[in-house]
């Protein structure tokens, strides 16, 4: 290397030194990256371990111990499909989720369309009531329904019907939020054009609004499913006995007791159903809104979640 080149290198370094010696203060702060990934690991690793334990060969629920599917199918007495109490919990959870989906979605869609356009007396309080379940602590909500079904509506009483009603009630507000978000995106133009061209109101709803709302409807159906299958407090308060036990209730009851990985297997299956519903919801939503201008579909789904802690 010639002296001149070395000198040139030195001056270049000198010229840059003031700017880079402390690092660029406007660059991406490394510690933020660190905190975020540590947080993500912390938030997901315990659950991943719980899933891994479901595939254990041995009976330990606290450590990894070989590979097998026996806690799902194999063991004739203690696996999810061998132990009737675990199997019943799974079928009951799926039944409630199905009922909630089929009732909450149409009710929520109609409520959302109505609230979005209705500007009369009573629309203000109705708006508040439609959103209030999102922020009401689930315990307050569940105590209310429990007392309702044991006093005024004791003819219905506690049990599957009461549980389904409870799930519909809290998930309907989520449908309202999703569908109204979509109504805002669609805007009133198409609908007004149809009305101006002489379409009666019902035809506008049936032939214009509903097809445009299809992605929100698909997303609603599957999110109600996920909310219902994950619910614990309302299910527990409105349960009437062993046959109305759901998966989260079973996990809650046995988490600190009888330690077998079949409980992990049950939790894994429930998680699998929830995630399947979400992947489907996301896929359908993306497919149906393809070609539309939007931020990111992920973030649209994310914005749905600004509801309560369930």
């Amino acid at each position, binding site marked *: 290397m010639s002296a001149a080149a070395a000198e040139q290198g030195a001056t270049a370094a000198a010229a840059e030194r003031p700017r880079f010696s402390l690092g660029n203060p406007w660059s991406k702060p490394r510690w933020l990256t660190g905190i975020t990934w540590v947080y993500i690991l912390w938030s997901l690793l315990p659950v991943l371990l719980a899933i891994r*334990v479901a595939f254990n060969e041995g009976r330990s629920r606290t450590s990894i111990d070989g590979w097998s599917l026996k806690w799902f199918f194999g063991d004739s007495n203690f696996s999810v499909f061998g132990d009737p109490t675990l199997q019943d919990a799974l079928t009951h959870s799926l039944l409630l989720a199905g009922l909630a989906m089929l009732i909450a979605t149409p009710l929520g869609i109609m409520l959302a369309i109505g609230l979005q356009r209705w500007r009369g007396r009573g629309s203000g309080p109705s708006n508040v009531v439609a959103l209030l379940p999102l922020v009401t602590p689930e315990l307050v909500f569940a105590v209310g329904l429990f007392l309702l079904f044991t006093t005024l509506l004791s003819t219905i009483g506690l049990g599957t019907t009461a549980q389904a009603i409870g799930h519909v009630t809290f998930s309907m507000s989520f449908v309202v939020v999703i569908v109204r978000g979509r109504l805002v995106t669609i805007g009133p133009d198409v609908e007004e054009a149809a009305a101006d061209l002489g379409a009666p109101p019902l035809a506008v709803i049936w032939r214009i609004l509903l097809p445009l709302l299809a992605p929100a409807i698909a997303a609603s159906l599957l999110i109600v499913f996920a909310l219902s299958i994950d619910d614990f407090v309302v299910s527990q308060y409105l349960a009437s006995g062993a046959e109305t036990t759901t998966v989260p209730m079973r996990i809650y009851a046995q988490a600190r007791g009888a330690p077998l990985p079949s409980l992990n297997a049950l939790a894994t299956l429930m998680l699998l159903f929830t995630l399947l519903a979400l992947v489907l919801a996301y896929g359908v939503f993306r497919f149906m809104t393809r070609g539309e201008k939007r931020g990111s579909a992920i973030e649209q789904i994310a914005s749905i979640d600004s509801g309560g802690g369930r």
Partner: protein
Amino acid sequence: MTRRRIWGLLAAPGMAWLGLFFVVAFYAVISVGLGNVNSLYQPVPHWNPLTWNVGYLTEAIQSVIPGGQNWPVVVRTVIYIAAAIIGALLIGYPVAYYASRHAGRWRGLVVVLLILPFWISYIMRMFAWTNLLAPDGYGSKILSALSIDSLFSSLGLLDGTDWLGGQGITVIIALTYGYVPFFILPLFASLDRIDQRVIEAARDLGAPPPSSFWRVILPMSKPGILAGLVLVALPMAGDYYTQTLMSGSPSTSMIGNTINNYIQGGPDKVLGSAITILLSAVLLVFMLYYLRTLRRQQGAEAA
């Protein structure tokens, strides 16, 4: 049918449903709490406001004020919630900030991973920790290998070495763990809405990064922080299952446990309802505050 009326008619079934199973259900809490009991200690609700009996409500109020039987539980609930939301803020803010402004090409993945805990049942996430923190669990072993348990013991935060044996600190950490995803997401949305040009303007006008953070970004994200904290504090106030799973000891019980014990456990359903009324009255302010910010946000998006 007029065009105006049809919208009200569409909303009617849903409103009727919510009217019965949400509004009337809450009215049932009031009627039971302000009602009486029969000779079998079963609640007799007083549906007519003119016949309300304030006896149990008075008893409930006396039990939650200083000197009352439930006063320690109230204090503990407030401390646990305060500690847990401070934890959520300290963990959640940097994460939401990174995800919204610095994640770059990883942004999609980071957002998906931040949303994921939402959709894992809360009970399952707590259950995962009961496996980890059992005396022979991986979590206990790691904490013991890093001497974190002895550190916490010497600070007086941990009694013995069993993390699941009625430790307040475990309940607080579990609450933070359980609810921090619900704090991050709305905060992420609100940080994401801050215009990058505002930050660039601060920088061009000579503000070093710390002061552009303290004087521009933080004030602009204040509504998001407050809304997020309210959103996680509300369900914590009615939480009883975290405590049961992570401790189970009466020495760490929260107000949610008190209500749950009264309503599901013993003969004191009326007193439980009266405490539920008090809890709701306190929380209503926060609930309406959150709904107002939510609607303002929706209004801003629609505009």
